[in-house]
């Protein structure tokens, strides 16, 4: 039985590698067309009406959520996974508090962009501004990125000298601290009551908004997917550079890397800061679209879900982690009957994936080879 499973597994892996090989062997212009077609498809997705594929839509079932809304959530999670993959998959730092950066990004736009936030009210009083005044949405973007990035550096500076398990514990604590602070600092964050009227590109949410409204979520998805594509492009650039190699070297053997001239602390801090900035950006988009946030939306289970997306998808491989994120965001929406048992199903799926594909569904190719090698070694030793 187990042998059969392994044989199927080997065949599927060979097929996957075959696809990747054939893809890599194509001439550049054909690959360019392929990528362009895929991107076009991503933009077309919310309108999906191809017969035979419409069953994919979450609104094709009774009481299903808005299809564009689910796509938007998927895009946000993909952004999270790409950011966390820099930290966990490339630099090899186990960060269990990623939700903290997500929350900081979300609260940045809420605290500075919403007229209901105590911070904006205080500014209105202090600087004698009109009651409709708040920081513009566009200015909140760099603000959210800067605040989450800074918090990443502040958290990383003392903790990145710790190794492995300690870092995981400290980051887990960080995620919780952010949530508890948001709940208890009532004078700044409204505490458990949350903050409403968080702006979008067209300003505060209102029925008059033509594009980024509350009913039609397609533009929100298009905005999010644009951000995702930009960030994929940026992270790709880093991956294929001196920076990416340093991250991998640190992940593989930090001491050997140091002797080869890699400044481990500097590049770990960069990985942490970039991860934090991407987490903050996703939180920012989430809060903008949601228009309302409260601390309960940022609890530790989400942090675990984020790490799960990376691990299930294939740590270290951007395509893999994006796939993992889409799966974990989409499946419970489309298959509502599981959502009652969501966490049971989720745990079960995790176990199955980890047993059958320990390197994730779409493993990083390097890691896949390593695994095959280990399987051989194991056979020899038995």
């Amino acid at each position, binding site marked *: 039985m187990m042998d059969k499973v392994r044989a199927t597994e080997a065949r599927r892996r060979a097929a996957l590698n075959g696809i990747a090989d054939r893809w890599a062997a194509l001439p550049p212009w054909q690959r360019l067309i392929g990528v362009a077609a895929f991107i076009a498809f991503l933009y077309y997705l919310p309108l999906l009406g191809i017969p035979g594929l419409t069953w994919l839509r979450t609104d094709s079932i009774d009481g299903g959520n808005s299809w564009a809304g689910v796509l938007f959530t998927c895009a946000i999670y993909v952004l999270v996974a790409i950011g966390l993959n820099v930290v966990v998959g490339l630099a090899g730092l186990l960060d269990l508090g990623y939700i903290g950066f997500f929350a900081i990004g979300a609260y940045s736009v809420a605290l500075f962009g919403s007229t209901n936030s105590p911070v904006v009210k205080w500014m209105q009083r202090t600087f004698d501004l009109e009651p409709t005044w708040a920081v513009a949405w566009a200015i909140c973007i760099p603000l959210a990125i800067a605040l989450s990035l800074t918090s990443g550096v502040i958290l990383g500076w003392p903790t990145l000298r710790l190794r492995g398990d300690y870092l995981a514990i400290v980051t887990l604590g960080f995620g919780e601290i952010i949530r508890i602070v948001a709940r208890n600092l009532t004078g700044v964050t409204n505490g458990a009551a949350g903050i409403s009227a968080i702006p979008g590109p067209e300003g505060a949410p209102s029925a008059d908004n033509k594009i980024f409204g509350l009913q039609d979520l397609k533009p929100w998805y298009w905005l999010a997917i644009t951000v995702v594509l930009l960030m994929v492009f940026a992270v790709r650039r880093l991956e294929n550079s001196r920076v990416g190699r340093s991250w991998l*070297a640190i992940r593989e053997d930090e001491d050997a890397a140091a002797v080869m001239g890699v400044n*481990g602390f500097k590049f770990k801090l960069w990985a942490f800061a970039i991860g934090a900035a991407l987490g903050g950006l996703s939180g920012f988009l989430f809060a903008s679209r949601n228009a309302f946030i409260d601390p309960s939306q940022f609890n530790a289970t989400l942090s675990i879900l984020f790490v799960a997306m990376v691990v299930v998808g294939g740590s270290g491989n951007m395509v893999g982690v994006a796939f993992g994120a889409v799966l974990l965001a989409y499946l419970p929406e489309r298959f509502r009957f599981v959502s009652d048992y969501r966490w049971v199903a989720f745990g079960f799926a995790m176990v199955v994936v980890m047993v059958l594909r320990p390197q994730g569904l779409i493993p990083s190719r390097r890691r896949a*080879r*390593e695994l095959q*090698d280990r399987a051989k070694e194991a056979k020899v030793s038995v």
Partner: protein
Amino acid sequence: MSETSSTEAREPSIPRQPGARRTLLEVDQVVLRFGGVVALNDVSFQIHEGEILGLIGPNGAGKTTTFNVMTGVFKPTSGQVRFDGARVSGRKPPEISRMGISRTFQNIRLFPEMTALENVMVGTDSRHKTSVPGALFRLYRVRPKPEELPQVTSDVPLLRIWQQVRRTCAQIFGLSRHILEERAAEKKSLELLQFVGIEGRANEVARNLPYGDQRRLEIARALATEPKLLCLDEPAAGFNPAEKEQLLTLIRQIRDRGHTVLLIEHDMRLVMGVTDRVVVLEFGTKIADGSPDEVSRDPRVIAAYLGESVDAA
């Protein structure tokens, strides 16, 4: 401190006395204790520029520990290491690597999931500058040398115009330092893989390489950091006689490229064949220092090695 080092580094390498060569590295009365264990006990020796120095001694004598002190992995309890006139002890490994000391490891420590080429490129990266902003935005431009400019090669008129435009832009605005560094790193790494004889495996993952090739890859990676001093920790371990012979040739070639070599080796005969001078350690203490001939006749050295072979039996 760095100022003194740079002035002293530029000191001309003219021998002060006939026959005497400039001292590249100086281990000066180094003591290293691990709790109660004295791993290195008042060890002093010098490495001269351009020589191949052997560091030998029975197992547990403190050879690897000496490397670890020299490359900043351990800080000596007392005493110090000077390289090119500048103090090494107390600096961090990346800094020491940039000063010009590189090494291999007794128990191979490659980056197992990176390809052979990537492993070597990590070494070349240590001489490069591109960091996150440079790789991301590519705004830092440098003027390319004529051979680095994009070439106009196509016969298709439209493509030809496009290539001409790119070439002109590169002439006017320069090329991004990131791109030039990437190209240089790849070129030099391939050249080094070729030098150690494993260029055919450039795109294979390090952990899949045969044992001997892994050892060679470690040497290529260490050379990629452009060391003045290359320290090899038992590079011949596990090699058969033919492979050992190849390795000796390689070590001589490394010296001929202008690197000074410090070689840890267990096998006395191997050391005698290639080194200019030998330092012998036993129980963390230096017991001999001289030409291979002198050392192999030294009664203390013979006793140390006899004792060891008895223990091993």
